[in-house]
């Protein structure tokens, strides 16, 4: 499947995290350049909010029963996970910290919302489903490859791991949906 511009933008946004992670620590540095738990929490929360927003748009625009069911699942699940994330941050005394990755994610998602808003009917349904596949693929790769390994707090790491399992299921559902709309 050809990757959409949105998926590319999302991948690039997460790529900024990976590139920061990949930078070798300067010899004189006392700590390697890395993202901290507050930033990780913000990135994960932002990704969740992006999918809730996309789902709400789908619930308004689509008339396809399968698309609507999927959108309801995304809105409900990502809101629930984000609620857990906020509760954990509160418990840990961590304030999610905005960062370039979160900003790039939000910017790419906003642009995609505008693009999707111009579509309707089958064209919209297909575009939404395709974006959901690409979005979950990219987010899951970022979770497993960067965010989970970088998380220092065990409870945050555990929540991210749970989130990854949930989102892998979402990806599978999105793939089935996209396939059914072809």
């Amino acid at each position, binding site marked *: 499947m050809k990757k959409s511009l949105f998926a590319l933008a999302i991948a690039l946004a997460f790529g900024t995290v990976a590139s920061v992670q990949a930078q070798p620590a300067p010899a004189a540095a006392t700590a390697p350049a890395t993202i901290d738990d507050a930033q990780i929490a913000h990135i994960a929360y932002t990704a969740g909010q992006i999918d809730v927003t996309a789902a709400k748009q789908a619930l308004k625009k689509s008339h396809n029963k399968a698309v609507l069911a999927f959108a309801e699942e995304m809105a409900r699940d990502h809101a629930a*996970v984000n609620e857990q994330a906020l509760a954990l941050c509160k418990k840990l005394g961590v304030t999610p910290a905005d960062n370039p990755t979160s900003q790039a994610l939000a910017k790419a998602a906003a642009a995609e919302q505008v693009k999707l808003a111009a579509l309707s009917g089958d064209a919209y349904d297909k575009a939404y489903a395709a974006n959901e596949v690409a979005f979950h693929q990219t987010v899951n790769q970022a979770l497993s490859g960067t965010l989970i390994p970088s998380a220092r707090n065990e409870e945050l790491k555990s929540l991210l791991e*749970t989130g990854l399992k949930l989102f892998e*299921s979402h990806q599978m559902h999105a793939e089935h949906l996209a396939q059914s709309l072809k």
Partner: protein
Amino acid sequence: MRCTMMVFASLLAMSGWAVAATPPTKAPAAVKAATPAPQVHVIVVDTMQYGPMPTGVRAGDIIEWVNRGILEHTATARDGRFDLDLKPGASARMKATAGTVEVYCKFHPTMVATLVVK
């Protein structure tokens, strides 16, 4: 005295034989085997999947669904015989009825399992 002891020993021996020869009372056990008490089988739901389905479930047994995940799920029979809502941290019980039934989550169609009740 020696004779008395021998008689006593003989009596003990006879009494022991008598006890050993007494057949155990089987009637209550036989009744229980015919109508076993309902068993409770717990199925844990977590991280987008149903835990292992219990084996040896008989009609009349109790199935307890326990949602240990952070998302809401359902345990819904494809043939419509049951439909349980499972909020995060909640559990729900139902009486098992005979048959093989496919179970799925209404919210997450990738969650499926097969429950066998004899």
